[in-house]
């Protein structure tokens, strides 16, 4: 349901991504791990065109966006269509501080999908209930703990009914016990069949919850496979080195 082909990206002459390809099945939970600067976040951001790849192609559901290096208005229109299938969650939550939690969740459905206020509110309340924030829905984000903020951010992304969710280090800014609140929401979504791609440093989560783990190094996917197999017995030297430093 998501297919990326040959994604390449350079910043100021530095090759960050060297032609990455990936195919994701519906309902998969994939963890992307690797050392800092390996390009895993950039890769994730290329999948919904927050970064414009220099080359490559992304298809999500029935929408394909090919990048030829120069970004045109038509590409932006196509990217806009693609994003309607993709939700994203950031390390720093990025909730809108001038709106309440409920308003944060209702905003995009009403503005982008032209959903009525009543319907948007209905959807938002249901999602906030699901992520355990029904009690604080009328608070402003700065009154919430980090774990609560990240769960609100997940609810906000889900309100757009994406078919795939991208997480860019969703728990890196959180204490372990707050991380757990967020990870359990992600596990619950997995159980419901949501397709999820997670860039993470949480190896425990990657091993326990993922259907597949990708190890990236120097702008390439070096190794991918079943988490138990890879963590227990990494094939590649880079993977071994990386996993060893974490233990």
């Amino acid at each position, binding site marked *: 349901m998501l297919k990326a082909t040959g994604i390449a990206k350079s910043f100021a002459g530095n090759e960050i991504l060297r032609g990455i390809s990936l195919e994701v099945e519906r309902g998969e939970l994939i963890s992307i791990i690797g050392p800092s600067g390996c390009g895993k976040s950039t890769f994730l951001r290329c999948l919904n065109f927050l970064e414009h790849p220099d080359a490559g192609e992304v298809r999500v559901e029935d929408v394909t966006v090919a990048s030829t290096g120069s970004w045109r208005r038509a590409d932006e229109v196509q990217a806009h269509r693609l994003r309607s299938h993709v939700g994203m969650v950031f390390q720093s939550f*990025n909730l809108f501080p001038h709106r309440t939690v409920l308003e944060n969740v209702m905003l995009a459905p009403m503005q982008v999908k032209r959903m009525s206020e009543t319907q948007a509110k209905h959807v938002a309340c249901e999602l906030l209930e699901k992520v355990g924030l029904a009690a604080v829905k009328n608070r402003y984000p700065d009154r919430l703990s980090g774990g609560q903020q990240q769960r609100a951010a997940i609810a906000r992304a889900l309100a757009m009914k994406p078919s795939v969710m991208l997480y860019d280090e969703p728990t890196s800014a959180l204490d372990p016990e707050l991380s757990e609140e967020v990870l359990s929401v992600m596990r619950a979504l997995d159980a419901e069949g949501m397709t999820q791609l997670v860039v993470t440093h949480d190896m425990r989560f990657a091993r326990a919850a993922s259907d597949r783990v990708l190890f990236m190094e120097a702008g390439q996917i070096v190794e991918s496979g079943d988490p138990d197999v890879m963590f227990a017995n990494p094939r590649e030297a880079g993977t071994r080195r990386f996993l060893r430093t974490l233990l």
Partner: protein
Amino acid sequence: MNGGTVMKRVRFALALALFGLWGMAGLSAPAWAEGGTPAVASLRVPGATDDRDLPWASDGEANVPYVFHDPAHEGRMTGFEYDLMQTISARMGRHGRFVQNGWDGLIPGLSRDLYALVIDGIEMTPEHKAAVLFSRPYYVTVDRIVLRNDEKGLDTLDALKGHVVGTIKSTAAERLLLDHDPANVRSYDEETNLFSDLKNGRLDAILIDEPIALYYRSDDLKLVGPPIGRVAYGIAFPKNNPGLRDAVDSVLGDLMSDGTLHQILARWNLWTPQMADYTGDQTLSTVQPTAWVDYRQTMERMSGSSVQAMVHRYVSFLPLIGSGALMTLGVSALAMVLAVAMGLVLALARAYGVAPLRWLAGLYVEIVRGTPLLIQVLFIFYGLPAFGLRLSPFAAGVLSLGLNYAAYEAENYRAGLLSVPRGQMEAAIALNMTHMQALRLVIVPQAFRTVVPVMTNDFIALLKDSSLVSVITLTELSQTYIRLSSTYYDYIGTGLMVGLAYLLVGLPFVRLARMAEKRMGRVVAKGHH
């Protein structure tokens, strides 16, 4: 021949130069109003609202005894030039209509067809003759020496040598003094300041046009010595309207030969041997100087320091200060609306626009911030008509203040926009908002919170800068202060009243801004990165 500030003098010269250029460039081709009555059918009367109207301009602020606000009935104009113009208008079968304009705007206003002519004690010097057409002199006078009562001897120019002598800027008296003993000349803008400095000893003497000496002299001062020099005042017309000049000139001739001018001047105690020589009218006047006596009595009553006189005076100021405050508020509020709207557009263009837009917006900000507001006001009001854009004084005032402050607001907003973390835009885009939606719904509201305190400051500053629109004939608070304080020699009481008015006008906005700050300030921006 008038009050004003140093700036105003400079501006008058600048305006004259501008006006001269205008004529040379052949730009003045205004649509002239046609006179209607048979006798004056061929007359072009610029600014006339109908064929009986004769609009004429003067600076009626603290301009005793020429044209000034009657201290007995504020809101009513009087003065010997006022009486003369009403008489001339009536003789021409027209209704004279006084138009207030600041001293430096008087001549440029002729070019804008705001009115048909200017009368304001304008000396018929070669420089002035280069810019306008003059009627024959309607008044000739002399310069006089004014001393404190206890001073002796200093009754000729030679005797004054080595003593500090004050006068009004850009007058014949000033030129005389500069020729004679330049080191000891002190030039003033305001007659009131000039005379109070003589009284308090900063000056040893004053040399000034006789009408001013007569009307501004208090009982502790005296006029001494023989008349000095000769000063002639003429009515000014635009160069391209000799027809109207000739018509007024001929009426002026009639008024001199039939004794009407004599009577008007005698009422003001201004008929002099020089006028008798000039007009050849050596008859003794039978007219009582009623206008002169009335003025002296009123001033004694109004400018007294008894509680009753003060209360009477300050109560009579209230309507004027009220209307000045309304003007200040109206101009400032509308200008701020314009500044906010345009500033936001400029800031968005600079922060998020494509290259040429970004560049243009930057250029606008630099140019507007880098040039004086005063020049912008004058340019928009007097300069733009050359390009076919004639704005009313109010519209020009709002536009120039608004366009000026837009540049400052733009920088303020840009800083606000840049203070919103990058992740906010990314989150909005990831939620599939368009760039415009992201700006409108996410970025701008957050930026607004950080810019409100600065905006409050800017509005207060704008409120005060709105005093500059007085140069384009708008009588707002500062102009009201200048008029009232210099009419009554009362800078303190009037100053306190006008200051209070500024505070009262500004306070609601400060409160409003505080409320907005409070409401939005509860949402603390979090950097997160």
